[in-house]
């Protein structure tokens, strides 16, 4: 996302660092910068930060953390119309709190729709957004500022007399809507819409409908700020092929607690810039408000993962810099202090730690919630807690340990559910409680009290703790930094997330490298070894290795969406690819200086989804001019020889048959019969340590010339070549000696060469080459050699 430097500056009294320095700071501590163009910084906001940083507020906050510059207090006051009530004009019904975690609406009367003020237009233009009218611009602006998509409906276009009903519901199958930009969409029952009592007004979280759009005649508006389920919006967006600035933000997941800030800003601007009269109340449907998330980490854990040697002060400094709300606690002290305060809280099977606690618990949500407050993130399910905790004996039992129990009643888990999923626990676990010391246990159970609740009781009298399975310790006793995560940071959920925050703010460049201790004996991979061994054998006898594509127009395994119609199938052989390669290289044989094209490929072929095989393909074609049948004989000979050579070198039998110059060998089968290799010594030892530099490959045709020269016997072929090279210049790209002839009784020898000319820049003409040849001939003649 592109951010205007000038716009960001408005968040601060003091001057921001220069763009170059700001970019550097962000790069090393937060985000990758894709580029800078004038005032615009293109920040690559990755998925883990797209909850909070897909907006100016988020980036400004981040800049404030990293630079230490203070964020400006913004005036958020605006005039509210006494006695004007949203609930006198509109009502709000939300069908499904999972799809629509939160919805708010506010009525604003007597707006004046018109042009936006200059500053607003300028801002939107600075990031490539077009100004439409003040109301629409405000909604757009609020989204860029807060990351929360917002919308305004024209109240008078909404169906109904008296109090008009907003219903946020799933669409009916086949229901239609025309969006603000004129797009027509047919919806289905998975898509959420904001609707009046007649029709869909808006594809929720994606795009507004035209029927209730703001225009120059709009008098009264309904401001709408909602939170929608990220997965649902993503599916809707994909299904409709409609990706909008709003849908992208919802897809990434944003906190429902962003809603009020956005509604406040939206209302203020509509009041200030469009003279609207804001109602006193906001209709707010928010049935499931999540608890603040707590994440804890100990200094030992930070150092263990990063390889640092931080001390308490260092961590505190960094957490303060991050403006995190945190405390330093001894987990067990916290747990034991809190636990009794929940006495009498109701039991609810499957109670959510995020939503139901601390008012309702089941046994393991109770312990999970308690430890979360102490900064220890333990699994949610009792059997997982049992596997997660450190085993202790009954004699070592201390207050704050967990006791696990098998009630022998109902469904007993014997396998872990989430943590190390599928681990067997033969003894079975279905209940847990917190040991409170002094022979007492505190736990949530359906059998406690009348309706099921949290109680403290004597362990030995407890009917739930007759079948004790074991005792576990959940804390190592170390102090922990426990962060109460601000609502928009949906990415901070586990201790590793905190460690990342600490690491990046500290700066990875400040972490000293440490050599890894060797504690592992690597094995030799047989397939890798023999693939390389075989390649060496083939290269040794003059074969060149090629790689070709697995995609083609023949095969049995089909890709769902191919890049092109002739690339939709996976190869079942290497032959087709090798033949294409042979053809290509045959054409270029003179430039390559080859009389025979001898190539091979090792790669996977696909007989079916479950039939992936490793093949070796060897292909040969003859480039040297000779009679067709002779060439074929030579080709077969080469293939026969190379196969025999492979057999000899590998000491294995190879069954194979050449077809049209290509032989294919199943390497899975071949390698299976070969002995286990002992080391990579003979395959990983590279000849050359130097790094060759790629020489540009010309895309223009080459030209051929032959030249034969008689020289006295004291001269050699090399002398001729040197002369030819000196006079031909850089267009001569390849030479080959193809004939030597010494007439009997004469003191001279004729050497004949193929010369290949090619330009990097153009197609050569005969005249150009003739000129070069003339020059060469002239030079030869001045030496008194004889061009034949």
């Amino acid at each position, binding site marked *: 996302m592109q951010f205007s430097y000038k716009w960001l500056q408005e968040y601060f009294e003091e001057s921001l660092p220069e763009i170059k320095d700001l970019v550097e700071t962000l790069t090393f501590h937060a985000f990758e910068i894709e580029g800078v163009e004038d005032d615009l910084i293109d920040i690559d906001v990755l998925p883990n930060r797209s909850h909070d940083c897909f907006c100016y507020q988020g980036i400004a906050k981040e800049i404030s953390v990293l630079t230490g510059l203070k964020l400006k207090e913004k005036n958020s006051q605006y005039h509210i119309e006494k006695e004007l009530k949203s609930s006198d004009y509109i009502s709000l019904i939300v069908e499904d709190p999972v799809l629509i975690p939160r919805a708010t609406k506010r009525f604003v009367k007597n707006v004046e729709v018109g042009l936006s003020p200059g500053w607003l237009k300028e801002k939107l233009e600075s990031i490539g957004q077009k100004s439409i009218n003040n109301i629409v611009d405000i909604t757009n602006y609020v989204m860029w500022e807060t990351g929360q998509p917002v919308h305004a409906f024209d109240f008078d276009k909404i169906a109904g007399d008296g109090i008009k009903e907003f219903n946020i519901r799933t669409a009916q199958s086949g229901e239609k809507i025309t969006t603000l930009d004129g797009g027509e969409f047919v919806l289905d029952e998975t898509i959420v819409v904001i609707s009046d009592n007649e029709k869909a007004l808006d594809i929720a979280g994606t795009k507004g409908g035209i029927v209730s759009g703001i225009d120059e005649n709009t008098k009264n508006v309904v401001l709408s700020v909602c939170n929608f389920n990220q997965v649902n919006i993503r599916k809707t967006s994909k299904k409709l092929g409609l990706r909008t600035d709003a849908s992208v933000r919802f897809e990434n997941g944003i906190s429902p607690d962003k809603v009020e800030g956005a509604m406040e800003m939206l209302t203020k601007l509509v009041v200030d810039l469009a003279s609207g009269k804001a109602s006193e109340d906001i209709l707010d449907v928010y049935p499931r408000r999540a608890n603040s998330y707590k994440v804890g980490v100990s200094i030992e854990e930070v150092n263990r993962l990063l390889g640092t040697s931080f001390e308490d002060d260092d961590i505190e400094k960094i957490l303060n810099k991050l403006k995190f709300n945190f405390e330093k606690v001894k987990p067990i002290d916290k747990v034991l202090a809190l636990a009794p305060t929940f006495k009498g809280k109701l039991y609810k099977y499957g109670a959510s730690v995020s939503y139901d606690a601390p008012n309702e618990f089941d046994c393991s949500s109770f312990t999970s919630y308690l430890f979360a407050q102490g900064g220890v993130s333990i699994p949610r399910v009792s059997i997982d807690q049992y596997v997660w905790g450190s085993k202790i004996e009954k004699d070592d039992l201390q207050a704050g340990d967990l006791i696990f129990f098998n009630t022998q009643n109902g469904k007993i888990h014997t396998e872990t559910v989430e943590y190390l999923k599928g681990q067997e626990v033969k003894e079975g676990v279905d209940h847990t409680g917190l040991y409170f010391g002094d022979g007492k246990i505190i736990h949530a159970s359906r059998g406690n009290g009348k309706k099921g609740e949290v109680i403290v009781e004597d362990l030995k009298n407890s009917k739930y703790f007759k079948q004790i399975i074991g005792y576990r310790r959940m804390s190592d006793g170390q102090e922990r930094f426990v962060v109460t995560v601000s609502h928009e940071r949906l990415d901070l959920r586990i201790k590793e997330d905190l460690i990342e925050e600490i690491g990046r703010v500290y700066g990875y460049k400040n972490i000293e490298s440490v050599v890894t201790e060797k504690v592992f004996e690597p094995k030799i991979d047989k397939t890798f070894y023999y693939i390389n061994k075989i390649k060496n054998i083939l290269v040794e006898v003059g074969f060149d290795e090629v790689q070709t*594509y697995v995609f083609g127009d023949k095969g049995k395994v089909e890709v769902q969406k191919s890049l092109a119609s002739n690339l939709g199938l996976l190869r079942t052989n290497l032959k087709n690819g090798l033949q294409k390669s042979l053809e290509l290289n045959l054409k270029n044989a003179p430039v390559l200086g080859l009389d025979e094209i001898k*190539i091979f490929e090792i790669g996977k072929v696909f007989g079916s989804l479950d039939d992936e095989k490793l093949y070796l393909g060897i292909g040969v074609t003859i480039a040297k001019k000779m009679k067709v049948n002779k060439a074929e004989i030579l080709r077969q000979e080469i293939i026969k020889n190379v196969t025999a050579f492979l057999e000899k070198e590998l000491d294995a039998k190879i069954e194979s048959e050449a077809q049209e110059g290509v032989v294919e060998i199943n390497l899975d089968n071949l390698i299976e019969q070969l002995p286990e290799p002992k080391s990579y010594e003979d395959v990983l030892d590279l000849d050359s340590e130097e790094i060759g530099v790629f020489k540009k490959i010309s895309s223009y045709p080459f030209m051929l010339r032959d030249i034969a020269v008689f020289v006295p016997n004291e001269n050699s072929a090399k002398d001729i070549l040197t002369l030819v090279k000196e006079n031909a210049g850089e267009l001569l790209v390849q030479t080959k000696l193809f004939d030597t002839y010494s007439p009997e009784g004469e003191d001279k020898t004729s050497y004949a060469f193929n010369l290949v000319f090619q330009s990097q820049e153009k197609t050569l003409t005969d005249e150009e080459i003739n000129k070069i040849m003339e020059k060469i001939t002239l030079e030869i003649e001045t030496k008194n050699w004889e061009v034949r």
Partner: protein
Amino acid sequence: MMNEDKIEDPKPLVTNLSKVDGQVGQKGHLHLITQTIRKISEIFSEMGFEVVSGPEIEDEYHNFDALNIPKNHPARDMQDTFWLKPLLSSEHTDNLKKLLRTHTSPVQVRYMENNKPPFAIIVPGKVFRNEATDVTHDAQFHQCEGLVVGENITLANLKETLETFFKKLFGKDVVIRLRPGYFSFVEPGVEVDMVCFRCKGKGCPSCSHSGWIEILGAGMVHPNVLNSCGIDSRKYQGFAFGIGVDRIIMLRHGLDDIRRLYSGDLKLVNQF
């Protein structure tokens, strides 16, 4: 594309199965991919890594779910996938849908499922992405991913490992830097840049005048990944990295177009 050796020292024509008929002939050429994977493997072998290989057709679970890339997570957008027919659709078999692996990480998942830490492995291999091709992108290319898991493997170890690797690959004056990055299978995640070896950090067209070249992604293995593979994340931790072999080749040898690597063209192969 003049081959100096051939011009200076023209050899008599021989059938090139020299060894077979006992004559001396010209050797062939290993493909740059092979040369580079060997070089990488050689360096890591010296550092105590095991080379591991695995299938190119994978299932959704091993390619995504086990790597903490859940369905409908935006991170799946970061990788365009070649899904294979037939497509299974019912919900419970969904994560067994077949695909061409988008990275070699599923091989690491399979290794973790079957081996106990400590270990250090690299996985070189061919991978596939369904995206428009251009000079730096192709539908098939090669990766070499690494994974080290033990009781006390740290980010400081990751840094040292990569520094050593790049010095051995590009020369001892090579400098790398780590900065924040995101990959769902690691936490913390880092991007690694290498000082541009053309201009040595001064800034040139190869590095968009920044002096640095983005060269790989890495990080500390996400505990969810370890747990999915049956490794207790409370006891073990580790680092992972992914090297783009083709990218290394383009940088190291100045290759102008990634697609040449898979064109079957000896005008490329025989240069090296």
